[in-house]
């Protein structure tokens, strides 16, 4: 298995670092995915591919549309550009995303998870009134005991339950939550809830795990071991896509970085080089971060840009209403 991930990473070295570049072995391919909230376009991604077996980071300033993008891909939200029975965008321009060789256009959130793309949430969704262990067990997939009629007869599901419990305890130990296993998840700290959510997602042995800000609120001592876990996951063949604001973490573990700004992919590339990409610096710091605002010529430019923007907005509005 480690070979697969080393291979995948080696393949990435050949990939051109431009937005929407094609990968040698993409697990996820997204086309024309747009999401508008009224007149605001939150996500407008023309094409992006995620390489199998590597860690890909999705970064971008606040409001760049990273979480909305996650929601769209995992079936928690529907793209505005989704193909419709009547009207809607033409076939070539309609949203289309393929995960592991399967078109995910009309797949509901629970089905997405069953197919192996499991996500976590930025605002943790630990089930606070279930114990930590129950939370974990809920994550296991294909449980016979979740069928109404099978559930009535304990011998039919107890063996699987035991196996799941063993697996859960092992994961909890890895995530330093073992001594909390019988506590209600609500009693955990914010960082511990993050860990629990990640551990719970791993209960289903996902093909691809999507982590929304996994490190927010986790104490630095734990961060180090978490990074190790994520890398270990990759080495076992799981594809990881994560949103993160902590640049140290991004630089440290990601094999590939995708940068979003204002809903679009503005840059892609290996962590070392993408940070110095002009589009990325512009997105984070503004296009004029390096220039002296006292410069008159610059002010003129700023004035001339303003009306252009105003005329743009109604056009977007019209599109949404049509």
């Amino acid at each position: 298995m480690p070979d697969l991930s080393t291979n995948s990473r080696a393949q990435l070295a050949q990939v051109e670092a431009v937005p929407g570049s094609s990968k040698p072995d993409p697990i996820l391919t997204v086309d024309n995915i747009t999401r508008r909230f009224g007149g605001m376009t939150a996500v407008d991604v023309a094409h992006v591919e995620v390489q199998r077996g590597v860690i890909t980071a999705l970064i971008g300033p606040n409001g760049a549309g990273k979480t909305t993008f996650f929601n769209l891909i995992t079936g928690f939200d529907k793209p505005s550009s989704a193909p419709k029975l009547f009207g809607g965008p033409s076939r070539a321009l309609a949203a289309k995303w393929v995960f592991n060789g399967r078109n995910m256009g009309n797949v509901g959130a629970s089905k997405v998870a069953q197919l192996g793309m499991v996500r976590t949430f930025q605002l943790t969704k630990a089930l606070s009134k279930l114990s930590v262990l129950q939370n974990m067990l809920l994550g296991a997939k294909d449980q016979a005991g979740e069928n109404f009629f099978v559930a009535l007869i304990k011998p039919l599901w107890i063996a699987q339950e035991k196996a799941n419990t063993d697996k859960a305890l092992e994961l909890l130990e890895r995530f330093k939550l073992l001594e909390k296993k019988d506590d209600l998840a609500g009693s955990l700290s914010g960082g511990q809830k993050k860990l629990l959510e990640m551990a719970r997602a791993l209960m289903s042995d996902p093909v691809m795990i999507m982590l929304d800000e996994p490190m927010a609120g986790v104490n630095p001592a734990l961060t180090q071991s978490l990074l190790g876990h994520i890398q270990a996951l990759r080495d076992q063949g799981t594809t990881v896509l994560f949103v993160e604001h902590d640049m140290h973490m991004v630089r440290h573990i990601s094999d590939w970085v995708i940068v979003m700004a204002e809903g679009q992919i503005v840059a892609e590339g290996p962590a070392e080089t993408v940070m110095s990409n002009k589009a990325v610096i512009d997105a984070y710091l503004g296009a004029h971060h390096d220039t002296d605002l006292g410069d008159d010529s610059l002010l003129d430019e700023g004035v001339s840009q303003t009306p252009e923007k105003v005329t743009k907005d109604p056009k977007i509005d019209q599109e949404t209403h049509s």
Partner: protein
Amino acid sequence: MDGITKILYDMSAIALSPATAAFAIAAIGLNVHFGYTGLLNMGQAGFMLIGAYGFAISVMNGLPFWLSVLVAIAASLVFALILGIPTLKLRGDYLAIVTISAAEIIRMVGRSSVLNALTGGSNGITGNSYRDPFNSLSPFPDGQTTILWFTYDNTGVNGWWIRIVGWSLVAIFATFVWLLMRSPWGRVLRGVREDEDAVRSLGKNVFSFKLQSLALGGFLGAMGGVLYILPASLQPDSMGRSMTFFIWTALLLGGAATIFGPVLGSILFFALRIAVQGLAGLFIPSSIMNSQQTEQFSWIMVGVALMLLVIFRPQGVLGNKKELSFNA
């Protein structure tokens, strides 16, 4: 008989009565909805009524007893599907609105004069027209039996047979729900109660689980309805909104999300109401409150009790406060 002794006797008699058992079963069903899945079903009486109609009308039209019970079950499941499919995708509050209206629709349709031939309109259906097949199943000889201080007919309209069947059903259904709730199936329901999206992100079909829960609780409601009318008569107006709220009070009193909560709650609900009524009759002079008013007073106290419960002890007698709170 001395006043206090009479109240105690009345309390024990109502605790054992088939109506209490019927309420307990309906409350077990509501507990599956609200206690375990977080579905705000405000129309449990509708499920009871539809079960009762299904059973009574089938028997009156010559169907055998067991087939009539099956009709009652089928009617409640269809009702659950009709309610659930359009509403379970919405937020919980909408289900409350839809269920209370649906229950009222059932009642209004049942009591409308157009259906006089079938449902007896607002007069309902008298017990004699559907009771016989049930009583003929009784293995007991004719006559009366006294156990402790209770003397009832062995079979009869309101005798030992219906009591034994009723409380056996309570035990069976409580066991049934216990078996389900300790399983992974029950765990998913408890997850749904708290955060649907989280459960969805783990690959569970939330809609399907909610529908199963609605159907199970509705089935129990229908069984409660059948049991409720057997020793009495089918009166659509006595199975309306107020009945739904009595079931809610019983459930919250005993403790939602517990196995015995709904059973204990139903017993306490009836016994305490009788106690309030009896004590008010005993100690409040009739110049202030006559016997009719003491009964109304006791029902008012039910409403007050429901409010106090929700505010001060949402977990009821048996519940776990950490597990059950209303802001979930």
